[in-house]
């Protein structure tokens, strides 16, 4: 059976928990998306922009010195960091902007944490001449000033969100409020495999290009499938993009790496799958960081893009069924991962992707024999240099 079901459920997770004003619109979007998905012209147009504008396919790069360093692992990096705008987010924004255009929407809104999704949204809006407003937590705007400037250059209005924790969760609240108010002309371009149905499936499909390419490339190079897939998980879009095309390859083990922030025992982390409980936030049922009264907790991570107390419902499903395993690494370990890849391979990864890189050391100790692994290098680290200057000094 292919998931989600017709109600947008992945097992008990997913669904559509939104105010009534949005319900009819979501049905329209669902119908539109599933018809475009089969439409030859739509697929051709998307392929064109992914190739000519974004720079696909991305390389599957054998990190030889890193592999030597780790000894037990042969590491391939899926180089999403080489894409235009610097991260995998553009795969999804190109797909959704084509949906928005076909639905006749004239304005796009988005939420952003690290600013990568905001930049990718601002970019496709500039490309197609649509008005764009991006909601961003005031705290994140400070941490990711470079991306704020990029969005402004691209002609997007960045609206600071000062409610709550002033990070991604609050930006998403504010974007949903805007959407409810301007439901007729506005398209909400969600950046992760989260939100109400059909967003989790739509974003997964658009990001699946990562795993489809990686699978073919790996088969060509190694004449076999990888032992492991490794990706960081905040909302979970780059991980789902890599994992999904391998879903039926039962021997391929999938590992999602969450942000343990200051450590799981500190309570200041974003490890939703490993530490969270089942709940409903931002339109779907998934795992959440919440109190025993059902109030959402504030997440923490050094990586703004992982700093979210929820996670895509399909990941919750993968965890429940055991299809994927979820682990976590701390801020400190992630910084070490960033330094390691920079020095040993000449690639500065984004703070988010550095979580996946950092886990390699743990995985290397754990494997019994020489194993192959594909790491999704979801973004490049240029945006983080300012923020981590103090840490590496």
């Amino acid at each position, binding site marked *: 059976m292919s998931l989600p079901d017709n109600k947008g459920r992945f097992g008990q997770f997913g*669904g559509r928990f939104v*105010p*009534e004003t949005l*319900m*009819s619109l979501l049905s329209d979007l669902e119908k539109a998306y599933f018809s475009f998905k089969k439409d030859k012209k739509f697929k051709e147009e998307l392929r064109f922009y992914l190739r000519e504008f974004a720079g696909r396919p991305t390389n599957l790069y054998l990190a030889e010195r890193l592999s030597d360093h780790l000894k037990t692992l042969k590491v391939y990096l899926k180089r999403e960091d080489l894409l235009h705008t610097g991260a995998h987010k553009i795969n999804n924004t190109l797909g959704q902007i084509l949906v928005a255009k076909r639905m006749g929407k004239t304005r796009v809104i988005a939420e952003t944490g690290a600013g990568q999704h905001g930049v990718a949204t601002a970019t496709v809006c500039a490309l197609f001449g649509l008005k764009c407003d991006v909601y961003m937590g005031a705290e994140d705007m400070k941490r990711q000033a470079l991306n704020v400037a990029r969005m402004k250059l691209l002609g997007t209005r960045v609206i600071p969100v000062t409610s709550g924790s002033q990070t991604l969760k609050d930006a998403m*609240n504010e974007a949903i409020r805007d959407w409810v108010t301007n*439901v007729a002309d506005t398209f909400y371009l969600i950046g992760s495999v989260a939100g109400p149905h059909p967003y989790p499936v739509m974003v997964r499909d658009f990001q699946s290009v990562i795993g489809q390419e990686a699978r073919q490339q790996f088969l060509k190079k190694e004449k076999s499938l990888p032992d492991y897939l490794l990706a960081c998980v905040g909302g979970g879009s780059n991980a789902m993009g890599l994992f999904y095309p391998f879903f039926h390859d039962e021997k391929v083990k999938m590992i999602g790496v969450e942000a343990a922030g200051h450590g799981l025992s500190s309570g200041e982390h974003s490890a939703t799958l490993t530490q969270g409980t089942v*709940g409903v936030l931002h339109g779907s049922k998934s795992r959440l960081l919440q109190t025993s*009264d*059902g109030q959402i907790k504030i997440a923490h991570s050094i990586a703004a893009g992982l700093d979210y107390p929820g996670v895509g419902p399909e990941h919750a499903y993968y965890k429940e069924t055991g299809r994927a395993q979820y682990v976590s690494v701390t801020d400190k370990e992630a910084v070490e991962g960033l330094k390691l890849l920079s020095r040993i391979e000449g690639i500065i990864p984004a703070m988010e992707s550095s979580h996946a890189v950092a886990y390699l050391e743990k995985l290397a100790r754990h494997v019994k024999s020489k194993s192959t692994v594909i790491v999704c290098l979801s973004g490049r680290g240029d945006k983080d240099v300012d923020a981590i200057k103090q840490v590496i000094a």
Partner: protein
Amino acid sequence: MNRIDQKFQELRKKNKKAFIAFITAGDPSLEVTKKLVVSFEQSGVDIIELGVPFSDPLADGATIQSASYRALQKGVTLGKILKLVEEIRKETQIPIALMSYYNPVFSYGEKRFVEDAKRCGVDGVIIPDLPPEEAKELIGIAKQNDFSTVFFLSSTTRKDRIKNIVNASSGFIYFVSVAGVTGARNKLSFSIRKSIMDAKTYTKKPICVGFGISTSEQVKKVASFSDGVIVGSAIVGEVAKNSGQKDLVQNVSQYVSRLTRVL
């Protein structure tokens, strides 16, 4: 028949419209909330909608967001609110519905919630982020307990969903006056009149209108084509304005009286 149904039956006999007042429970304190509820009955309020504060109130505008935040800072929980209603029931039998986002109810456990709420004297629940499609279990448990489940209609609701929504609703149906979040507005769109007339062809259940209503003119106008009017942010704003003052309850009640008087 619970207190909400009885109230509408009574109002219908008198050919009158319902005035439904929303306040956030625990803002500025649970003690004041209790006093407000008791006092509102004297001010002509027919039904109380008691807001359960939530950390991420995405259907609410700034006024109720702030009130929720203040209440949470004071440690208000769903459990404490149920106990509060139990206390309130010693003093008044005014119908009370809780308005909560889904996660606090889900976290409490739907069955346990309905049973505890019923036992404490709550008559129904309104959950803005729970459409009937996702509420089958809750509706089932509520029916067994004569507990109202109020669902929403909006001007964007497609015809094919109206029937399902009105069937799932009990107590009354909440018609959202504007596409948007809660909050007082100077202008309301009166094209909603037609939408309500359309919905009336599907149901005899009362249809009440909320979101954005703040003046006595608006109350009067909206009541002319619906079964009741829900005022929230305007009252919550009034509570905030009088915060810390000795005569808070008196001032807010007077404000509410000016709104109920026109019905």
